[in-house]
């Protein structure tokens, strides 16, 4: 069989699984034969490599190949899904029968004309995808991380570093006639340094990456900056004081602290929770949910970012969605099912972890636009408070809006100056309320370095966040110093 006229990656999958365009059209046609609203086929082939360094040597190397296909049938708000890692026309037909069992009998056999198309753009066209870079370069980079961290300071007693490289190839064929694929490269370097002094041990972690070539890590010695930042972070923690406890003014630094937006705002604006009216933001479009200084967007189209994708996992091109505009709630993040049921446009946010998962509305890169204030003026404006430069992770209860996130690098602000570094402190707040307390927004918007992974309902997807320096008047800080 020859599929040489097809664009990649359609040809890749049809050749690999011995399928034809006609067979896919027939499968989709039979999937929506009952009283179904929508059906799609999703093919995936992913190669992952990872390397880990500890005790001064790269002692582990992994390579994983996963492949499979999922068939989804949607009728009203019902979803039938079946997937298999054994992909043939017969297993697709069987999966289709399983998936369509949720739709009522009746309806007509429809034929769907599927014609392969290419995405109109490529946000991560790479001359050499990171998976194609030789093993030696990857090992050498990790060895250099170890040497650099240990040379940085003799108190660094161990270095744990991980390099993960992925190439995911997907193909979506759906009953709306979409037939589109994508090749998604991804690379991430994580560095953890353990520092020890006078019997006290502390750790510091930093890293980054994106949908970039491997050379991104070495450009301008970026990986060495990550390493030194992790080392500094561990050393700083050695002299950190206990965190304060109680409600206080908090200044969030630029970049990764944007995880606040992801937890406090972003999840609550995902279409599924709002269709079901179980989000603290349900039914609040057009209302003021933030100070007029705040404009928050989700943008899956920024070239080479970890959270960016050409099209989502339902074949919809990603876009830029304004969530909050000058404090007013403007929009939700949608996949096809929720957009259709809510009578709203899809936004290209239907994502899934793999072929073994049903798509859901998910974020891409979520950030706040820059304001006018100089960041140093924001810090100077606080007589007593907390400055948070880096976070571990966060979590939200979308129904009551309560969120939590953990500062792994923070400082006391005393009389407008950063003074003592503070040990890990947890911040808690209420999503619909927290941005109303934003009183200053800096001019220094930064996106994070490319480390974010978002978990929802057991599915993990890579995401990005971003933030300018902001001042929040009144967040609960959970330390031990009451």
């Amino acid at each position: 069989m020859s599929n040489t006229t097809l664009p990649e990656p359609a040809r890749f999958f049809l050749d690999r699984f011995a399928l034809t365009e006609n067979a896919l059209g027939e499968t989709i046609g039979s999937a929506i034969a009952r009283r179904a609203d929508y059906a799609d086929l999703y093919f995936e082939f992913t190669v992952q490599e990872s390397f880990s360094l500890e005790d001064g040597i790269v002692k582990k190397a992994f390579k994983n190949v996963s492949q499979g296909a999922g068939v989804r049938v949607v009728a009203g708000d019902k979803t039938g899904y079946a997937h298999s890692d054994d992909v043939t026309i017969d297993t697709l037909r069987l999966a289709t029968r399983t998936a369509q069992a949720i739709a009522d009998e009746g309806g007509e056999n429809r034929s769907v004309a599927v014609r392969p198309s290419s995405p109109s753009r490529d946000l991560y066209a790479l001359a050499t995808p990171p998976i194609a870079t030789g093993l030696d370069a990857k090992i050498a980079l990790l060895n250099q991380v170890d040497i650099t961290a240990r040379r940085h300071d003799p108190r660094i007693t161990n270095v744990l570093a991980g390099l993960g490289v992925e190439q995911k190839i997907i193909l979506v064929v759906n009953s709306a006639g979409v037939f589109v694929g994508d090749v998604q490269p991804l690379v991430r370097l994580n560095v953890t340094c353990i520092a020890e002094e006078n019997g006290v041990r502390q750790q510091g972690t930093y890293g980054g990456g994106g949908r970039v070539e491997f050379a991104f890590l070495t450009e301008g010695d970026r990986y060495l900056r990550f390493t030194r930042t992790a080392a500094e972070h561990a050393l700083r923690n050695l002299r950190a004081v206990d965190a304060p406890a109680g409600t206080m003014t908090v200044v969030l630094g630029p970049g990764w602290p944007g995880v606040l937006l992801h937890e406090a705002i972003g999840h609550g604006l995902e279409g599924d929770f709002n269709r079901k009216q179980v989000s603290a933001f349900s039914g609040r479009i057009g209302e003021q949910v933030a100070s007029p200084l705040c404009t928050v967007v989700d943008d899956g189209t920024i070239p080479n970012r970890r959270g960016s994708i050409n099209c989502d996992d339902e074949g919809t091109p990603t876009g830029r969605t304004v969530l909050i505009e000058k404090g007013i709630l403007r929009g939700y993040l949608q996949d096809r099912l929720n957009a259709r049921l809510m009578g709203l446009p899809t936004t290209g946010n239907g994502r899934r972890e793999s072929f073994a998962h049903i798509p859901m509305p998910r974020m891409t890169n979520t950030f706040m636009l820059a304001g006018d204030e100089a960041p140093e003026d924001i810090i100077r404006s606080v007589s007593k408070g907390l400055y948070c430069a880096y976070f571990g992770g966060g979590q939200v209860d979308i129904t009551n809006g309560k969120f939590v996130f953990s500062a792994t690098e923070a400082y006391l602000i005393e009389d407008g100056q950063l003074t003592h570094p503070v040990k890990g402190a947890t911040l808690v707040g209420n999503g619909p309320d927290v941005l109303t307390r934003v009183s200053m927004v800096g001019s220094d918007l930064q996106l994070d370095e490319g480390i974010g992974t978002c978990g929802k309902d057991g599915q993990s997807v890579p995401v990005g966040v971003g933030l300018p320096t902001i001042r929040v008047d009144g967040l609960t800080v959970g330390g031990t110093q009451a």
Partner: protein
Amino acid sequence: MSTPSLEEIAARLLQGARAHGASAADVVVAEGDSLAVGVRLGEVEKVKRSRGKHLGLRVFVGERSAVTSTADFSREALAGLAADAVALARVTAPDPYSGLPAASDLTTQVPELDLYDPALETVTAEQALQWCKEAEAAAREADARITNSEGAEFDAGTNRIVYATSHGFTGEYRSSSCSLWAVPVASQNGTMQRDYWYSSQRHLAQLDAPAAIGRIAAARAVRRLGARPVPTCEVPVVFDPEMAASLLGHLAGAVSGDALYKGTSFLLGRLGEAIAPSFVNVYDDGTLPGALGSKPFDAEGLATRRTPVVEGGILRSYLFDSYSARKLDSRSTGNAARSVAGSPHVSPTNFFLDAGTTTPEEIIASVGSGLYVTELMGFGVNPVTGDYSRGASGIWIENGELAFPVEELTIAGNLLAMFRAIEVVGNDLTRRRSVSAPTVKIAKLTVAGT
């Protein structure tokens, strides 16, 4: 053409690894079926079925090692797998601690632990949807303030694992699991609260009744209505069994040989020390019949066992796989676990805090003013130092009684100090998960609020 058995595939891979120059190797092959169904507001929301298989090959070339894994069981893919693994291993550094366990340590018999329920092979989506409907309906009917629902979900899976090594071990076992969840939403005065309840078992017949799950979920959601923060204070904190289990999870992480040799455990160097009061006993037991964390042999072919981790408050044993044991000049405790795509690492089996004699009601009654924690959020635990700071919600205790719901709080302390400050352990241990605990009271923690 007949399809080769998983054992034949494993044997062929081990031969291939040898042929490509590996000095030793092991293979894990997993295959399974799963069913997940969901109901929301009485209607079918989701039916999902899958069949999957995956295998991982670990090779050693002298002291170098690597793992390759694939879901593609075609002859060509499997032939390439061994070559890839050996090539990957050759670029790693020699690690003198690497290697398979000594052949003399391998288990010679695979005990029958009652981990597999054939009934889960034949559950139909219709049956499962009916249980979900019953659970959700019970939640919605339990209280007029249950106004919405995120639904109810049933999941079931059956698995078969085959493990083989180049030094002669071959073992296999089947396992199964199932769970039923209900997630109702309560509302009052324009605010909403969501909570859940669940049952999770290896055997279908042992799942709690759907209606009982729904009623508990509803009561948990309703009791949160009107929650508010309290002023920052230092008070006794009572962890309900689910939240106490999270503390046990942190303990399991800290006694893991992996964390110890990496220097990322706050319990490093504390073997033989009192880390808790004398009435505290913690065990890891992989041999409990039918339990969620049991297995007949670990991921390196060693027998699982019962390890006293803390006895009489004294830290008696860490948990090891063979790598971390070699690094720390100790012996494996049969706690190797492995995902197909990974290398073995240390994991607890059934890890639990032994029950005390005090009822949870008596524990709550012993608190003048304090916090009963029913939910913890966030990742504010530093494993290196034990520093602990997490978002919390629950019920405020006044004069020994559950008085009013609270939220938007944090609790903070240090895990070692917290274990030492355990004042009472409840008598209400049930093994709802593989890591479990009864109600626990900690004498004093910082609660941050307004």
